[in-house]
């Protein structure tokens, strides 16, 4: 393996971790409610940007990140409250548009309050690149990878083993039956948006030192998250993670070997290719209609 590919892989994994966590949050909400959340990228933006603003204001890094995660989670819960109200009255299509509107409001608020400047967080540990098998890797990349794995492990345990997580899985597979079994499906919905907000904000904060952040940083990530989730198979949690990482790596390889300008086009071409071969995504099951 030549050195260049290691370099591309490391940047692909960093970007992929962001996509994967965003796609994960997106899938959790989709499973709980059937809503396609186009505001998913905003929790990533909030996580990174609020941390950066607070650190600049003199807060210590862990406290700033904690506060940012809290803000993003509150925003996500607010979206859930509004969505539930609109969902009961107007149906799913309206809620999908609602998430677009909510994203604009979040972006607009941040823009009005904090301006349009690009900000960054200090690296969590040293900013000095490490040498790994001849390629240079930022320590922050390791932070990103470890954090992503940690989040995935915690969520894996939560959904497989905890009582609440299993209630979630039951609701995702069949909401009405779950309700008849005595599961509080409204609570599950709230849980989905909370987890999604936390996961997104953590991803935003841990990647901010490398990717930088600004008020509109969430748009592209959010769209890529949707595409990553579809790539892996809509509704599949492992699929979302794999899809996100694949997307990040494919983009980095395209940027490295073909042209950095066409990196944004890769995601869609991948979706078309996967659709032609496996219409339900890499991990999707043929059961399609969700209401």
């Amino acid at each position: 393996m030549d050195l260049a590919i290691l370099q591309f892989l490391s940047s692909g994994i960093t970007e992929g971790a962001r996509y994967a966590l965003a796609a994960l949050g997106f899938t959790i909400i989709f499973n709980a409610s059937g809503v396609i959340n186009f505001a998913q990228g905003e929790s990533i933006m909030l996580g990174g940007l609020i941390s950066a603003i607070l650190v600049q204001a003199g807060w210590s890094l862990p406290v700033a990140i904690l506060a940012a995660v809290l803000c993003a989670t509150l925003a996500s819960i607010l979206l859930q409250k509004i969505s539930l109200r609109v969902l009961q009255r107007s149906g799913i299509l309206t809620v999908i548009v609602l998430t677009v509107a909510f994203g604009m409001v979040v972006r607009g608020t941040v823009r009005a309050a904090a301006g349009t400047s690009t900000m960054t967080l200090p690296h969590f540990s040293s900013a000095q690149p490490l040498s790994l098998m001849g390629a240079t890797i930022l320590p922050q990349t390791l932070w990103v990878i470890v954090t992503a794995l940690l989040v995935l492990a915690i969520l894996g345990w939560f959904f497989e083993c905890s009582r609440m997580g299993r209630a979630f899985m039951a609701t995702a597979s069949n909401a009405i039956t779950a309700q008849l079994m005595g599961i509080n499906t409204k609570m599950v919905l709230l849980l989905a948006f909370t987890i999604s907000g936390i996961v997104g904000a953590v991803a935003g904060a841990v990647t901010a030192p490398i990717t930088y952040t600004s008020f509109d940083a969430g748009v592209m990530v959010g769209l890529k998250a949707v595409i990553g989730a579809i790539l892996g198979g809509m509704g599949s949690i492992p699929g979302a993670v794999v899809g996100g990482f694949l997307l990040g790596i494919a983009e980095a390889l395209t940027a490295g070997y073909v042209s950095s300008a066409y990196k944004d086009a890769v995601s869609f071409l991948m979706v078309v290719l996967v659709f032609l071969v496996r219409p339900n995504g890499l991990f999707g099951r043929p059961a399609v209609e969700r209401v």
Partner: protein
Amino acid sequence: MASALPPLALAIVAIGFPIVLTNPFFIALANQVFLNAAVAVSLSVLLGTTGQLSLGHAAFVALGAYGSALLAQHGVAVPASILIATILVGLLGWGLARLFLRLAGYYLAIATLGVGLVVAVVLRNEKEITGGIDGLTVEPLALWGADIYSEVVWYYILLAALTLIIAATLTLLKSPAGRALRALHDAETAAIALGVDTLRLKVQVFVYSAALAALMGALYAHYVGFISPNAASFHRSVEFVMMVVIGGIGSIAGAVLGALIITLLPVTLADFEQFETLVAGSILLATLIFLPEGLVRPVKRIWRRRVS
């Protein structure tokens, strides 16, 4: 009688507007409203009948614009170039719809989103063909041997185009196919049981919608004389969705009203640019929460009650 009153008044205002208000700024603004309104109508039909969201309508507009501009650059007469570009985008829409409507759910929305991303990237980077971010100068529309530059003439061309599109759309919705379409939206399973080929209808509506967007894009290009990749941005696509939702999904009058509001918003907020996203987003959010049917339908109901 009473129901004919508002359209009649509207027609008089629309025709008289450039005669009374001769300021070219206002006429240019009105032209922008007509262009946006026609695209919003095309999107509203798609949303209102098939329930399918398009997040890439700006890309269809941009493809129509660039397509016609490039054809004209290579010697095709301008009215013909508009027609060819429209048909080509219609074909693209057909391919997309065939590929992504096989699955239930909102895959088509994602597909249109993807097309939007790809189109924007290509337009920005293929400098030799599209001029890149610097954009492209477009040849003017020539009718009966004369190049058309006048804002007022364009005002009437675009007004006519919008009127024709609205008329065609209303006719379509009232035809048997249109009734099947509405059945599709209200109760898809029932429509299938009654023998409606829902997939085929959905594909046709999507093609109609994409082609109309391309047509307006082509007209836009020859009217303004210049196009840039910004026309294809995700932001533009969201603006079209906003126009439809604010006016009321599926409502033709609503699409026009929504286009009016969203087009005038940046002009009224010119001095408060930093609040533009916030205000636009808040208007959309408030509409969805408090007026889920949009602005037009409640007003219509009140009007009918008044009259009767």
